[in-house]
């Protein structure tokens, strides 16, 4: 995500490749850029230790059969005299190659494909509504309008609520016995719905919650993007006799492109990995029917006999899916001439 727009005061032309003068290229590069490297060093070190080292371990774990039950290399028992006797664990974990992947992808263990399908449904519906509603509200708020400030604050409110509180609030409202949504349904003559009895309605509750949680972010970012579009473009379009809809399609949308592309990519990634909403609103009910990949992985790792290796396998697969998606996304943008 980097173009060269970023104002480098000390711009470095890339060193000519054939340059054999003493101090070596690395040395000269260091002399020139050492302060920049020193400045980024803490973060690079932290990223390395806290993210890439665990990542490497996670990938390695996915090739073992490590679980809570077989994680000890030795089993120690206290003898009567108080001394400890340790024997190698006969069923200790071992490297099993691609077994986890085969098990998971063939459906022998867990419900990967079902969860993958739910995740796709979840991600697509959330992102489409986030973007659509966010864009609609941003367009409305971007015009001269009485009470604009008040609307803006009210519409941003859901963003100010921590996600786990929102999740609890919506689960409370969707409660089958006394939830206000069922009460309102009844008041207008509809049947009470058993939201968590069917995976489709249960997923719907989570999607509604997540839409409510995520729209303000989209709205505000798109609003920010709209305000950077020069008004001359609108004036020119107006002089050319463009209808409001034409102005929206030909001026607003292209002007929003850079912001849209970023928020759509980030929004997709965030939603794909959105843990708390599913975990707290549906809890995977009914019977794992609304589990997405991330919560499935969490359950593998921390519920029942903790299957650490299987959870890591999930993690590697999720990351691969997102990486492939991002690469394709970027490529599609490039094809349309977006330099990004």
């Amino acid at each position: 995500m980097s173009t060269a727009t970023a104002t480098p005061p000390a711009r470095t032309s890339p060193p000519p490749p054939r340059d054999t003068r003493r101090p070596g290229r690395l040395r000269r590069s260091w002399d020139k850029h050492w302060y920049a490297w020193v400045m980024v060093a803490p973060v690079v070190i932290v990223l390395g230790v806290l993210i890439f080292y665990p990542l490497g371990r996670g990938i390695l774990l996915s090739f073992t059969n490590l679980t809570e039950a077989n994680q000890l290399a030795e089993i120690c028992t206290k003898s009567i005299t108080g001394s400890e006797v340790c024997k190698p664990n006969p069923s200790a974990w071992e490297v099993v190659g691609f077994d986890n992947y085969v098990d998971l992808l063939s459906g022998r263990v867990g419900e990967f494909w079902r969860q993958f399908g739910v995740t796709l449904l979840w991600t697509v519906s959330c992102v489409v509504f986030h973007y659509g509603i966010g864009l609609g509200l941003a367009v409305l708020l971007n015009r001269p309008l009485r009470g604009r400030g008040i609307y803006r604050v009210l519409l941003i409110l859901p963003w100010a609520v921590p996600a786990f509180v929102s999740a609890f609030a919506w689960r409370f409202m969707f409660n089958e016995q006394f939830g206000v949504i069922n009460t309102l349904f009844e008041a207008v003559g509809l049947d009470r719905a058993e939201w968590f009895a069917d995976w489709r309605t249960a997923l719907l509750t989570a999607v509604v919650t997540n839409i409510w949680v995520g729209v303000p972010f989209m709205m505000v970012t798109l609003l920010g993007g709209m305000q950077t579009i020069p008004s001359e473009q609108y004036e020119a379009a107006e002089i050319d006799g463009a209808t409001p809809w034409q102005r929206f399609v030909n001026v607003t949308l292209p002007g929003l492109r850079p912001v849209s592309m970023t928020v759509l990519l980030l929004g997709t990634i965030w939603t794909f990995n959105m843990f708390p909403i599913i975990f707290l609103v549906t809890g995977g009910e009914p019977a794992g029917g609304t589990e997405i990949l991330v919560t499935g992985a969490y359950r593998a790792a921390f519920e029942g006999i903790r299957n650490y290796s299987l959870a890591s396998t999930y993690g590697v697969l999720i990351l691969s899916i997102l990486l492939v998606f991002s690469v394709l996304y970027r490529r599609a943008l490039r094809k349309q001439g977006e330099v990004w």
Partner: protein
Amino acid sequence: MTVTPMAAPAPKAPGAGPRGRSRRSPLASIGLHATLIGASLIAVFPIAWVVLSSFKPGQWVQSSELSLVKEPTLANYEYVLTQTNFPTWMLNSVIIAACTMLIGILMSATTGYALSRFNFPGRRHLLMVFLVTQMFPVAILIVPIYQIMAALGLINTHASLVIAYLTIAVPFCSWMLKGYFDSISTSLDEAASIDGAGPFATFWKVILPLARPGIAVTAFYSFLTAWGEVAYASAFIQTDDRFTLAYGMQQFVPQFNAQWEYLTAAAVLVTVPAALVFLYAQRHLVSGLTAGGTKG
């Protein structure tokens, strides 16, 4: 409440100046306001409903009768604050989130500056890495980090959560601060360097003070991230007195015999302070986010 479809009022030129209002037909005006009022109601209703419910006695919270407030009482708040571990959880959350915020900002401020100002070899890669870390599902890091924490004996400590949250906060803070530094004119850097200041002095004496709003907003955002995190908190913390709010509040709504009245009161207590600061900070937050997102 009338909710008109989103597209009802034809989109008119944004930023078209005050002419826009006079030219809008009354019907379009009504549609516009109706849509916004409807959307605002939807945005506010869940919050209002939780607040209202928190003042009701238990039997009215869990009743299918529709009532705004019935026999208002502060008993739920009193119970949550005196009879449960809620204050301890709150303190835990504050400590953990504050540590995450401080360490995260300290580390990412210089990085954001370097990314914004210097075109050093590796810059593009680092920006790429920040983006890629956004893709890391909790699932891939949580087990290895859990095992490392277990090996270090840090399970069930605040430190384990702070370390885990840094993996989320550091890339994001660096990214956002870079965006904020981008919005500060480079002519200031040039002036400082003409005055003989090195890059570190320029950063420390000239740019950092100017970036204070951006730092504050990023700090707040990382605070909120740690404040609301659920997965790590659920996995790493085992005893009641060490829970964070996000995990502790699940105690109020077990599978059976959920105590929604206490949950609503706790929700209000958790949200009000965070929301006040958030609303104060959000303007800067957005400009930092969009700047960071659109400029490479």
